[in-house]
């Protein structure tokens, strides 16, 4: 398998998981950079060019609430899970756990 193929597969594998990670991290309010830092500290490396548009798309879908706040002499847009987002996160978490449980034994073979 070539590096390009591996990168493509990794990207596909991570795409869905990133949504779950972002929604889960936004139980607490975060602005773009602080969210990226939190994900990085948790071991999920995501580049800015992917993360910032992703947060906006989730907000456009009504899964996140957002507001501009002033802090440290600068304005920042804070995002937090909306009610709809919280419902979706609960369902996705359940789905993820089921998948993980089913996938574990398969990968061990």
């Amino acid at each position: 398998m070539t590096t390009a193929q591996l990168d493509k597969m990794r990207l596909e594998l991570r795409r869905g998981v990133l949504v779950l990670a972002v929604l889960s991290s936004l139980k607490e309010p975060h602005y773009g950079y602080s969210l990226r830092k939190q994900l990085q500290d948790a071991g999920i490396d995501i580049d800015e060019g992917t993360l910032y548009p992703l947060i906006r798309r989730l907000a456009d879908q009504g899964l996140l609430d957002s507001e501009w706040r002033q802090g440290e002499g600068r304005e920042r847009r804070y995002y937090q899970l909306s009610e709809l987002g919280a419902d979706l996160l609960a369902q996705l978490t359940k789905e993820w756990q089921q998948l993980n449980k089913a996938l574990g034994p398969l990968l061990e073979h």
Partner: protein
Amino acid sequence: MDLLERYLAAVQQELPADKQQDVTRELKANILDQLDALREQTPEQSDEEHVLHVLHELGPPKQMAYQFHPPQPLIRAELIPLFRFTLFMVLGIIFLINVVESTLLWLGHDQMGLLLLLKHMGSGFIGDATLAFTGITLGFWSMSKEQKNRCQQLPNWDPSKLPQLSQKWQRIELSDIFTDLATYLFLLILIWYPAWGEVQSSLSLTEQSRFILQVFSPVLLLGIANNLWQLSQRNWTPALLKANLLLNAFMVIAILLLAFTGPLITDVPERLYWLDADQLHRSITISLLILALFPGWEVIRDGRRLLQLKK
């Protein structure tokens, strides 16, 4: 910082007007946060180096803008095959019409050279094709918009209604439907195109031939309707086979009548001085007989297929 403003302006340029201010405002806030973090991590580097690093990580402005606002195709992916066939069919007809029109003009004008003929053909085709391309694209764009709204509703389909195909040939290829459609349309235009009056002085049809062609025009219209029916079904059913068989039988009759009921055209054009009237009429009759073989073959083919389906 000038570089940062240039980057934001380039991103803004690629975004729709209603998102420009909001997206760049947020992107700028995020970049400034990243720059702060970089200053803490690598204080020995200059501000310009930091900006360069962050912008390099973010990627080209166009790519960044597309991430925020993915481009929407003008025509939905599922409509592309139909769009392609429609385009090829219409452009094909336009090309043939231009060839016929220019040739008739050429036959009627002694001073018209080969270069002028090619120029007439080319300019006519480009003008008509541009108009047709625009019209078809706009039509499919509007269909795409309509389908997008429809797709948002839950699809209501019944798997038990899937066609039961017992023969491989029962699936109708899009290319076959469009070839037939193009033929019927071309023939209709050829018979009724009003502009022929101006150019056909060189090659006039006899009253009898014109009458036969016009009487059989409804058959061509039925052929178009039959093709649209095929397009909606996409597989041969006994009813479709019977309709196709009948249509092709009528076509054979029309062509044979044209071939055997006297001359098709009144005079031999001056350009074709090397042919006498008998030779020209004989050539036309033979050409028509060869032409009749195509629908004739389809009559036999559909007859055999009907028998296969009955078994």
